[in-house]
């Protein structure tokens, strides 16, 4: 079993691991020559299934295993993220699977040159006669530093992962491009905070208090609201984009689109967001949603698919994708019942 790769895009990889880490501590990582998959299945809350084209993070990848050259690992995301952060200013970074004391680990080897602001100080202030006997005339070398970070991992047998399946969902009623996630996150965080502050003395479990209602229509509107004893608050976004469905991607082509739930939803509601009709609504936990929104740091386009009172599926596309090897993170958020 061998895995070795150069890291092509440290920043993306770092942000990806940080985003995933907010949902769970461990990721199932599936490595192959074509793609790398990250899956987070927390005990409760949102699942993430991410499929990345190799180029989006790696270069010169080499994967070899007895199981069709696929390697499955369980990786602690905090450590991986921490290790990657130390590579942010690296001139090069390599990652490989290795064993030490019979324990598997991912070793990240980073070559850096020190930044100029940390150059040695003048020796004038030295206090105790331990001045350098030779001067700087030989220079300080190239100041190239090699940092090795070892991340403990677990190798997962093919049977272990065979039982893990990506969730399936019915055709969505509404699909819409979300507004900038930083805006959405800051508002939903406030809402959640309001709910927590208000009901400190109130009743119900925390999860029932922080229940956000998120709704969208096929006229470019997104609505987020929360209700507590002390207030009821809602924010409405308008002029968002409802992307057209691609007939080649829909079962039944043009006919399939005509029968698609979103086509019916287009007949209802209005673009100013004031109508009560035409909304597909889900109830989600505000704190879980805050963790999901953490993916905003990747800066990709996000399409939200609403299955009314059932589920919300987010597709997050990495920004640098050229369209051929698409990398997409899929978030599955279940709706609570009323």
């Amino acid at each position, binding site marked *: 079993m061998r895995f070795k790769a150069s890291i092509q895009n440290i920043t993306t990889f770092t942000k990806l691991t940080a985003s995933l880490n*907010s949902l769970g501590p461990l990721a199932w990582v599936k490595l192959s020559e074509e793609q790398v998959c990250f899956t987070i299945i927390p005990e409760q809350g949102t699942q993430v299934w991410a499929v990345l084209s190799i180029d989006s993070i790696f270069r010169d990848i080499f994967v070899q295993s007895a199981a069709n050259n696929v390697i499955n690992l369980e990786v602690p995301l905090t450590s991986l993220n921490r290790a990657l952060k130390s590579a942010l200013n690296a001139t090069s970074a390599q990652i490989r699977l290795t064993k030490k004391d019979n324990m598997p680990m991912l070793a990240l080897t980073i070559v850096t040159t020190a930044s100029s602001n940390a150059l040695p*100080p003048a020796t004038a*202030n030295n206090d105790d006669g331990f001045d350098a006997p030779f001067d700087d005339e*030989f220079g300080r070398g190239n100041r190239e*530093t090699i940092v090795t970070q070892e991340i*403990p991992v677990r190798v997962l047998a093919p049977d272990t992962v065979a039982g893990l399946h990506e969730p399936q969902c019915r055709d969505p009623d509404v699909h819409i491009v979300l507004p900038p996630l*930083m805006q959405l996150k800051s508002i939903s965080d406030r809402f959640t905070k309001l709910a927590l502050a208000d009901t400190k003395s109130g009743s119900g479990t925390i999860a029932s208090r922080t229940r956000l209602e998120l709704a969208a229509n096929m006229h470019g509107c997104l609505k987020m609201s929360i209700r507590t004893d002390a207030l009821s608050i809602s924010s409405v976004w308008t002029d968002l984009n409802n992307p057209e469905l691609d007939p080649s991607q829909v079962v039944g082509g043009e006919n399939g689109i005509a029968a698609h739930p979103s086509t019916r939803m287009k007949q209802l509601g209005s673009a100013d967001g004031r109508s009560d009709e035409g909304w597909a609504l889900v109830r989600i936990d505000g704190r879980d949603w805050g963790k999901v929104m*953490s993916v905003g740091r990747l800066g990709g386009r996000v399409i939200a698919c609403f299955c009314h009172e059932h589920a919300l599926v987010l597709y997050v596309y990495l920004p640098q994708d050229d369209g051929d090897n698409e990398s997409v993170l899929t978030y599955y958020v279940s709706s609570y019942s009323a």
Partner: protein
Amino acid sequence: MVVLNFTLTPQAASKLHDLLVCLGKFSDTVAVEARREKFTFTALNSSKSAYAAVTLDGKLFFTKYECIPSSGGPDGRFTCSMYTKALLSVFKGRLYDPLGRDGAIDRCEVSVQERENETQCRFIVKMVCNQGVIKTYKLTYEAVDVMHALFDRSVAKNYWSMSSGVIKEYIEYFGTKTEMLDIFAGEDGRCVFKSYTEKISNGKEILKHPLVTAVAVSTSDFEQFTVQAGTHIVISVKDFKAIVVHADTLKTSLKAYYSQPTRPLQFSYGCDGLLCEFTLMTSGDYTGAPLTSTPAPQTLGSRGASRAPLTVTDRTSIRSDMPPPTEPASRRDRSGRLRNPGSRQSSSAAQEDPESLFIPDAQDARRREDDEESAWAPLDYEKEETLGWDASADHDASVFPTFRDSGSMSTTNMSDSNEVFEPTQRVSQIKGLW
């Protein structure tokens, strides 16, 4: 009654803050030793594996310095112990405002009011600010005797020196929860700083294991590097970080002196009348048993101590032990006599002691959050809004250790700490000694 008065510039007061922050990472209390020519803060950590001494030169560091100990003539001294947090609440950060804005301090005057009745003893700090604001603090202190660790540089054959700013870059690579640091002088012209944690190797726990980080540096990046190739020396990451961060506030070079594993190592740096020396216990066989909590006997090394007119720390009272500086005098004297200065067994006792010395400072590490990143992090809904009032954790009065202003604080408090550390500490050592 002792006469002790000194005056600090705002810059010097700010340096006092920085050094107290550093000492606070080693101990809750600092001991003060004032002599006619100099003023020293010392701190010993609870596992007695690290001893810090910061010496301030009477002429160079202070604007004005006057110390007339009540006894002892030219060698006399005034000693006491105070809570680090209490001093930090007075010597806050940002005391020095280069722009001299309203409320910036003009000077800081310190005096000691010593009374027969210990409850009336006060360490008085007066911050004279511009525009007529005067802030006066009266801190309680406790009279203790102060001890010093001895370190014999003449036997420390290995030494290196490096810009603290460069080392600070290295420590930023270290994983947040690691405990130990192995400094290894390779044969290939490289020196490796490796942070790691003792293995916890069962089942899924493996994945919780902290990162192992190795930073390989060309020895030519050091200002000086004279270390026998192949030498491993292991100290606490947390101590190392505290020292490097403080050295970096002075923008000075950090120098290390050591001989071999299980013998003490000393870091030294300083400038402008301020000299910092940290004497740390080491181990070397880092794949083997965890580090021990038995620094005391071997720290000073019998050879160094007994032959030690050469010792660099000429100011020290010659003891080969590192007892807690705040230990009541009676007790310390006794333990001082008890201790066998020439114990050779101590190093083996060190190996056997199952108690690990080093406690990771997870809290400290967690604080180092990336600002930009935190915006994307899930919100901490409990957190107060930032704008506002006394957000500095350093000033958080609620975390102060409390003691009653009754004069009995010393004994109660210290016997507590003895209860905590003494059993593992002493018992194991004494077994080895007798």
